[in-house]
């Protein structure tokens, strides 16, 4: 493929160009309060192929606030490597000025103050403007959706994904892969995929009964763009029936299946593919490992772990692109493909500042049409917050603490558990909390809030199990979520230890006593993957709790001690 020397030259050229026309420059200009749409979109069209990547939108059709993580620990070979760098270190690595728009978009510090300066981000009407602008320069650019699209909002839940499908179809993507979509249930997924005017891809989506490729999802799709034969191979989230309720899609099996990925790459190359793109929902570290195992992929468009990186990461001859979540960013990747080889690339992570980028009128109208039947429900104010509500991070965020408090008080429990999902926009101090806001952090098809008894020993087993999904040093054993959020209990975690010995010092906060392995505790939680879970819906539990509080008070959570980071 590409010799190391060719590639270094290509990457140096590209980084120089990024420095000149892309990332570094707009941050400086914006610091002078001169951020414009033209600057955000500025890009010297390069080579002969353009890719546009969006991923993990989680049904956020309207602009949102989304605070990036403070704690995002890497383990094993990924300790201290991107995307496991946050805050000031991240800004230093990429030369981002403090207080600049990229500081606000990409790091967590001073989030509330900067959010007031720079406003909300995202909105699929703004994304449409960006996509259209890229298509104006390169009419045959490929638009690729990395999945986690048909999940995560009030309207998405009530329309079973139809609202997002309608909006996305209007954006005319070329291909998509999947994760949370399957939690709509396999019948609904098949119904939506059947009517999809673009390719539904997943080389690792298998028929569970026969352990052979599922008929509804093709492994790859060929495109001829700019005279180049491009193969896009899909990679769905590998651990769907483990991280999400498998009983909702019993006909399907997943897995990483990197040996089949290699077979698919070889197959498309043999069929004449000059450029191979993997549209992936593996998560960044899994993709990084896969790129080192599978040869012949030019570009991996990563998803799932919600990382936003201003520059591609190189693994061998493969470039990895990370495009963030919730509609905050769109990545544009221009490639120069000559004689079946990637000779160079140019990349830009385009931040969707909603007050700077003009909404596309047609898509804006379409979004409002989807929301109109639910307007009153969406906009009802349930309460206010005195502090920043956010979720993203390896351990409890303030939204999670609020949800755990709601579970403990509404369900009369000693301990609460809330899933370590990475979606859910933020709410600024002093802002109203609407019903839509609550649904944005709780909406799912298995949201029943259970109440049960668990022994101290079993709670420990759960924490160890989830901890290993996050901190196993081999990325192939990581599921890409964050640590389960705990209310009413503190613990210490040593992330360097193996499963079974990471979690110690479990303490019941109400009494200050150590958790007794033999004693039973009343535990309330939600998002159980078990069929037949009983209880009220989590969004009703949280709404009742916030209504009673009136104004929610955010207090710093110091109950988790992290060691070995």
């Amino acid at each position, binding site marked *: 493929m590409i010799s190391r020397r060719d590639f270094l030259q290509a990457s140096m050229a590209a980084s120089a160009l990024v420095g000149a026309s892309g990332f570094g420059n707009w941050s400086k200009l914006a610091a002078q309060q001169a951020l414009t749409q033209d600057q955000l979109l500025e890009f010297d069209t390069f080579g002969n192929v353009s890719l546009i990547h969006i991923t993990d939108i989680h049904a956020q059709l309207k602009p949102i606030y989304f605070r990036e993580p403070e704690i995002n620990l890497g383990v094993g070979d990924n300790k201290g490597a991107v995307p496991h760098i946050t805050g000031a270190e991240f800004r230093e690595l990429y030369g981002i000025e403090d207080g600049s728009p990229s500081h606000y978009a990409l790091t967590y510090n001073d989030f509330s103050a900067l959010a007031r300066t720079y406003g909300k981000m995202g909105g699929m009407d703004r994304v449409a403007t960006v996509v259209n602008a890229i298509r104006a320069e390169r009419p045959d650019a490929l638009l690729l959706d990395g999945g986690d699209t048909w999940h995560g909002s009030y309207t998405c839940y009530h329309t079973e994904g139809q609202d997002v499908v309608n909006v996305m179809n209007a954006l005319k993507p070329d291909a998509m892969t999947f*994760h949370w979509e399957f939690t709509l249930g396999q019948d609904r997924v098949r119904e939506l995929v059947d009517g999809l005017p673009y390719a539904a891809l997943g080389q690792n989506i298998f028929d*569970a009964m026969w*352990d052979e490729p599922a008929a509804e999802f093709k492994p790859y799709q060929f495109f001829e763009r700019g005279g180049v034969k491009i193969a896009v191979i899909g990679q769905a*989230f590998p*651990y*769907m*029936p*483990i*991280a*999400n309720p*498998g009983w909702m899609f019993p006909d399907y*099996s*997943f*897995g*990483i299946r990197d*040996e089949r990925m290699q077979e698919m790459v070889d197959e498309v190359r043999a069929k004449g593919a000059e450029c191979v793109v993997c549209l992936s929902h593996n*998560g960044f570290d899994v993709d990084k490992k896969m790129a080192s195992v599978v040869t012949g992929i030019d570009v991996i468009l990563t998803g*799932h*772990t*919600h990382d936003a990186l201003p520059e591609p990461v190189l693994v061998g001859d493969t470039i990895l692109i990370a495009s963030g979540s919730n509609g905050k960013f769109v990545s544009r990747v221009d490639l120069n493909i000559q004689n079946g080889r990637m000779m160079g690339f140019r990349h830009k992570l385009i931040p969707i500042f909603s007050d700077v980028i003009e909404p596309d009128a047609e898509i804006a109208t379409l979004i409002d049409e989807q929301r109109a039947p639910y307007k009153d429900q969406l906009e009802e104010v349930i309460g206010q917050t005195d502090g920043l509500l956010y979720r993203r991070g390896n351990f409890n965020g303030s939204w999670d603490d609020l949800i755990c408090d709601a579970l403990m008080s509404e369900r009369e429990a000693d301990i609460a*558990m809330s*899933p*370590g*999902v*990475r*979606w859910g926009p933020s709410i600024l101090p002093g802002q109203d909390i609407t019903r839509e806001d609550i649904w944005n952090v709780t909406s799912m098809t298995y949201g*029943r809030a*259970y109440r*049960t008894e*668990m*022994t101290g*020993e*079993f709670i420990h*087993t*759960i924490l*160890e*199990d*989830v901890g*290993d*999904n996050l901190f196993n040093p*081999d990325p*192939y*054993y990581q*599921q*890409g*979520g*964050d640590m*389960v959020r705990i209310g009413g209990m503190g613990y210490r975690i040593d992330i360097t230890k193996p*499963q*079974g010995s990471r979690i110690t010092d479990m303490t019941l906060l109400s009494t200050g006593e150590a958790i007794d392995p033999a004693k039973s505790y009343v535990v309330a*939680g939600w*998002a*159980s*993957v*078990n069929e037949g*879970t*009983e*209880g009220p819906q989590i969004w009703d539990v949280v709404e009742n709790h916030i209504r009673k509080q009136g104004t929610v008070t955010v207090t710093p959570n110091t109950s988790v001690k992290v060691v070995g980071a």
Partner: protein
Amino acid sequence: MSFSRRDTILMALGAAAATTLPMSARAAIEDAISAFTDGAEVGETGITLTAPEIAENGNTVPVEVSAPGAASIIILAAGNPTPGVATFNFGPLAGAQAASTRMRLAGTQDVVAIAKMEDGSYAQARQEVKVTIGGCGG
């Protein structure tokens, strides 16, 4: 993550089995290996074991083995109370020395496949398969 009392007990047992492999199981796997190999030295190349890194369902985990030139292949689940999963014997007319089946795993453990080659040598492949409670995917 809500569990019936029965599920809870079952999983607690599974987890206990996963974290501390009982001595008897360790001995059982060693015995099974030496019974198959007759104590001969076992190489690492020439056999491919394909199994999921994390099982979607510990009760039915797909596993595939392939060892061109093998006379027989044995699959063992190192952490099961009874490690033996399957033995495949290939006759001279076999088109390929490969087989697949599904197995039940009591908890997170190593799955071992050993091939006895036609020349009398042995080759082994080993992979950890995690059996997890699940939930909480981002």
